[in-house]
């Protein structure tokens, strides 16, 4: 019963939209964007809450992580009062709800507290590390999009031709190797045995100005190459299959309408249509940028967000973890929103379907 009413409701809505579509198109677009914005904000609140719960329900006494295990064990027997003081100092003795409210308040004020381990403000460390992750990841995403995208488009357009038959299997094999394994093999061969690249880290130290910049680039090359290899492979696969799909359909329609002669237009048309899912995927990659290079960072001792998260798990530095997760969440939400907006604004199919109605 309910089902039937729902359907009828939808039908009315559909016809309504159809008849007034042209006039209210821009209003609707704005409405959709606004809706996506609301979703984003709600998601953010959920993420903050999950962050809080995740850390609060971790096994073990947080006080132990704050003051260190040895000290904790010693104080537990010798001077348990100190432990209670620490508990009160960090607000851990209050009921969970009031802890949550305090946490929300502080988050809104951008006060993320101090690291349990180094006692320095968490925000400082996270921003410092984020810089390095972005330095490594942004160029590698863009470069891969360029390489993978253009190769994929060509291979998809000339599906079954030389480029496709050679490149596709190679890239597929490449993407089936675990990232960390390939990274380690590259490190062993190119840095340790051949000594072409440094063994890891960001810079050699003791440099400044242009020399330091060049040194950083030199340190970046190997990890970036590994990342570009992986990302290009997936960009290639995506672009290839989209172009292949569109081309088959478009080719037929265009061929029927105009004759096959105008290849340029076909190519242009196909690429334009294929760009949409590709941009969505790029947005996803940018959304995941902060945690996306984790394994490569760990292998190459790149002091970015990935290594920070990993170290924080090992040392149970919960404020640090919370803040990392928050920033990653924000990043993903923002880029998801961006992807949605871009899709609404530029997706030709979305428009076409509506007009056809």
């Amino acid at each position, binding site marked *: 019963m309910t*089902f*039937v009413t*729902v*359907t009828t409701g*939808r039908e009315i809505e559909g016809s309504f939209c159809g008849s007034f579509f042209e006039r209210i198109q821009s209003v609707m677009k704005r409405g959709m964007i606004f809706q996506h914005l609301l*979703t984003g904000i*709600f*998601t*953010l609140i*959920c*993420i903050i809450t*999950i962050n809080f719960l*995740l850390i609060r329900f*971790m*096994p073990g006494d947080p006080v132990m992580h704050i003051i260190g295990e040895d000290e904790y064990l010693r104080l537990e027997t010798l001077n348990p009062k100190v432990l209670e003081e620490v508990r009160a100092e960090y607000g851990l003795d209050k009921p969970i709800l009031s802890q949550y409210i305090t946490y929300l308040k502080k988050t809104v004020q951008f006060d993320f507290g101090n690291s349990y381990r180094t006692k320095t403000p968490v925000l400082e460390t996270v921003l410092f590390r984020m810089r390095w992750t972005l330095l490594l990841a942004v160029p590698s995403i863009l470069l891969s999009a360029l390489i993978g995208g253009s190769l994929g488009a060509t291979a998809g357009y000339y599906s079954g031709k030389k480029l496709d038959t050679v490149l596709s299997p190679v890239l*597929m*094999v490449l*993407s*089936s*190797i*675990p*990232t*960390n*394994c390939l990274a*380690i*093999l590259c490190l*062993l061969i190119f840095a340790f045995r051949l000594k072409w690249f440094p063994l890891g880290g960001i810079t050699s130290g003791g440099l400044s100005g242009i020399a330091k910049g060049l040194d950083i680039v030199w340190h970046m090359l190997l990890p970036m190459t590994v990342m570009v290899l992986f990302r290009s492979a997936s960009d290639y*696969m995506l672009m290839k*299959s989209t172009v292949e799909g569109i081309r088959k359909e478009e080719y037929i329609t265009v061929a029927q309408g105009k004759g096959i002669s105008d290849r340029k237009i076909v190519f242009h048309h196909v690429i334009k249509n294929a760009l949409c899912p590709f941009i969505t995927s790029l947005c996803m990659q940018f959304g*995941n940028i*902060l*945690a996306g290079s*984790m*394994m490569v960072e*760990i292998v190459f001792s790149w002091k970015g967000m*990935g290594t920070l*998260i*990993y170290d924080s*798990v*090992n040392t149970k530095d919960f404020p640090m*973890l919370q803040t*990392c*997760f928050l920033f*990653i*969440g924000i990043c*993903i*939400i923002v880029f*998801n929103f961006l992807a949605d907006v871009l899709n609404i604004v530029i997706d030709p199919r979305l428009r076409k379907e509506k007009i056809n109605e």
Partner: protein
Amino acid sequence: MNRQVKAGMTILAVILFVAVFAPVLSPHDPYELGIPYQIPSSEHILGTNDVGQDILSELFYGARVSLTIGIVSALVVTVIGTTLGILAGYYGGKVDRIISQLTNVAMALPSLPLTIVLVAFMEANLRNLIIAICITSWTSTVRIVRSRVMQIRELPFVKLETTMGASSVYIMIRHILPNLGEIVFVRAVMEVANAMLTEASLSFLGLGVLGQKSWGSILHYAFYRNGIINGYYWWYLPPIFCISFSVLGFMLLGYYGKKDIKKKHKKNRKEKISYA
């Protein structure tokens, strides 16, 4: 069936064969202790590890646990993802909004870091490892299934059935689910590959299963007992190869199988529409 799918099937058949007949194929008991760090010989074709266990036998037995991790994770992810996707796509409205919101939240969680946190803090066993691998990976299946169901729902024959008063459950199982075959299959196969890659990452970080022999755990010991820096390639290369080889098998199946099914699927859809 195209060439690539055949290749994928062959790879998977080989691995499945090894997994099933591991006890017969293995020259030694993989748990039997012996002289550590032996280099490859006729007795131990791939040498022995740091407690003297035969590496080749470990690899054969490892196929079992690694495949289990991959396939069980993929099953869990697919079942959850498909169910939520169908519900959201079919009912729309409130149900859709709740599920979509849930998906949005899960997507905003960093998958690998979250998995690492969960594995590090949950009780260490195979079940929890699988849970940690699954916890954020169901989202893409939901999204894809949902949008597909929305398309199917609008097909004339489905609409006809609804107006004729067929129950939602009947429609979902009888008409929608069979039409999702292609997507669900591709997602599931890709999820196996993903889960196996995640296990490799976790093992590298020291968070894989320790008690059982999986390719990840062989790698784990090769990493952490310094097989790599000492240049014992017969220890660390085979598990990497095994993981990559089976991931490749699943990828070939998922990537090229999609097209295969699409062709068949189109025919099916036409038949159904004419029937409707």
